[in-house]
């Protein structure tokens, strides 16, 4: 009951958070700009190279969704960091923790509140996927649960990471570190052709950074009827358990640090 109350309160606070609203407005503007190229493609379908255009629609949607999904990771990290930091800044954490609430329960409530917001974001993203496919005249062949669960697990990782960092540092610094981790994880991902990084560093970072490519739902978006094959459930399970494990480790570390830190109005 306590955790649920904190989660719902966090969710209510996040959807009213001006920075997050501004963040989302910026994302929508970029999306509308990208939509122009999709509409151009749709327009060209009626002409001589319709078949080729048809094949180009899904990768374009995938790239648009990569952008939105990447934005979602940042949103998850920022929301988690800000959800904790804003309570410290305003001093509301003192009133909450004066109640019979354990510190980890407070963090868990914050975490679940962020996940609730990210669930709404993922559902909107899912709707957008189908809308873009319809606009482009293509069909999304992959199953919807993949497009819901994969991004959610990835957002769990980034929000847990943001929460862990904000227990010891300013939310902006925490956010910047998450951004670096995001970029780093895509650089060290297998198949990335970059060469400036020595192998030992690359493999080291590969194990430390979250493997967001493994949890990318956009790789399922480019599947067409021709390339469709049933993914083994063990592949899904391994990827999702990896993500949940990473998020759990970050959350437990955050709870451990938060348990012994002094709480005051920052």
């Amino acid at each position: 009951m306590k955790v649920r109350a904190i989660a719902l309160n966090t969710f209510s606070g996040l959807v009213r958070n001006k920075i997050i609203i501004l963040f989302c407005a910026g994302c929508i503007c970029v999306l509308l700009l990208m939509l122009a190229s999709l509409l151009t493609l749709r327009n060209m379908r009626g002409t001589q190279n319709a078949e080729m255009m048809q094949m180009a629609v899904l990768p374009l949607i995938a790239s648009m969704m990569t952008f939105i999904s990447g934005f979602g990771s940042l949103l998850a990290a920022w929301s988690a960091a800000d959800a904790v930091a804003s309570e410290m800044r305003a001093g509301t954490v003192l009133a909450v923790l004066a109640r019979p609430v354990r510190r980890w329960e407070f963090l868990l409530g914050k975490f679940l509140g962020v996940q609730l917001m990210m669930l709404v974001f993922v559902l909107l993203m899912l709707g957008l996927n189908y809308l873009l496919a319809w606009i482009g005249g293509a069909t999304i062949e992959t199953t919807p649960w993949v497009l819901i669960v994969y991004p959610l697990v990835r957002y769990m990782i980034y929000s847990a990471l943001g929460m862990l960092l904000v227990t010891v540092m300013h939310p902006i610094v925490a956010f910047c570190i998450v951004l670096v981790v995001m970029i780093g994880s895509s650089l060290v991902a297998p198949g990335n052709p970059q060469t400036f990084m020595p192998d030992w560093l690359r493999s080291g970072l590969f194990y430390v950074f979250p493997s967001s490519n493994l949890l990318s739902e956009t790789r399922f978006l480019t599947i067409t009827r021709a390339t469709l094959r049933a993914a083994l459930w063990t592949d899904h399970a391994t990827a999702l358990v990896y993500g949940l494990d990473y998020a759990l480790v970050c959350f437990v570390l955050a709870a451990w640090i938060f348990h012994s830190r002094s709480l005051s109005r920052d």
Partner: protein
Amino acid sequence: MAAVIEFQRVTKIYRRIFSEEKLAALSDVSFETAPGQVCAFLGPNGAGKTTSISLLMGFFFPTSGQIRVFGEPPGHLRAKERIGFLPENFAFHKFLTAPNLLRFHLRLAGRNPDSAGSLIADLLAKVKLNGYENLKIGKYSRGMVQRIGIAQALLCDPQLIVLDEPTSGLDPAGRREVLQLLAQLKGQGKTIFLSSHILPEVEQIADHVIIINRGKMVRSGRLQDLLATGAQVEILADRVPPELTQSTLRGAIVEPTPAGMRVLVDTARKRETVEALWAAGCDVIAMTPLRSTLEELFLKEVDQPGGAQ
């Protein structure tokens, strides 16, 4: 009866990360608060009051010493279940209305808010916030925020109420109402631990006073004992003949006032002085033992050069 709050040789030292710099916010502070007592925790700015309250609530951890609240370590759920707390410069989730905030705090206390409609209405009426149920807290004035803070502190019928500057931001009428409320709670046998800068108000309700300065406890005791100096009495007399002067009344200070002649004399000489006044044909209107005020006591303690270093 077991003490509600126990501080035993508590020291809190703030250390900067990556630095040798240390700041002792509290040094070897010990005190106890008995059940049903109103304990005023006083000190100038930076004396360590908020640090002590944060330690008491389990927000900070002592460097050394032991703290017990209802016999439990600070921050323990069993202790927190019995505490109502109002932090200094209280802040709330601004998007909530007052009833929603109280419902949220009821949920945090593990209680069902659905059956607490009348409790919430009563509390809002008690702090004079009825009529503002639909206004978001973000639109509240400073005084209104303080009132809702007091309401949430009283929400679950706590046995110990910890108030850090409860009257800050309130107008004189609001301060008087809060004092009346505290007096009412005192009458109900609640233990109240409060810090305040408004000493005449504290004097009206406190039973016990603790004064700290620069992290050290400089005075502690029952308010009556601390204020009743007992050294002098004030005698008010009328129809004093002109020949009765200060030299006639040995050791007394005589000064005219609109109500009559005011004679200040050592307690040891009060009988001798009164008899001298009667013998001279004066009417003795009143005789009052002189008490210093809490403010005088406070200033004396915190202004002492070298005191509490």
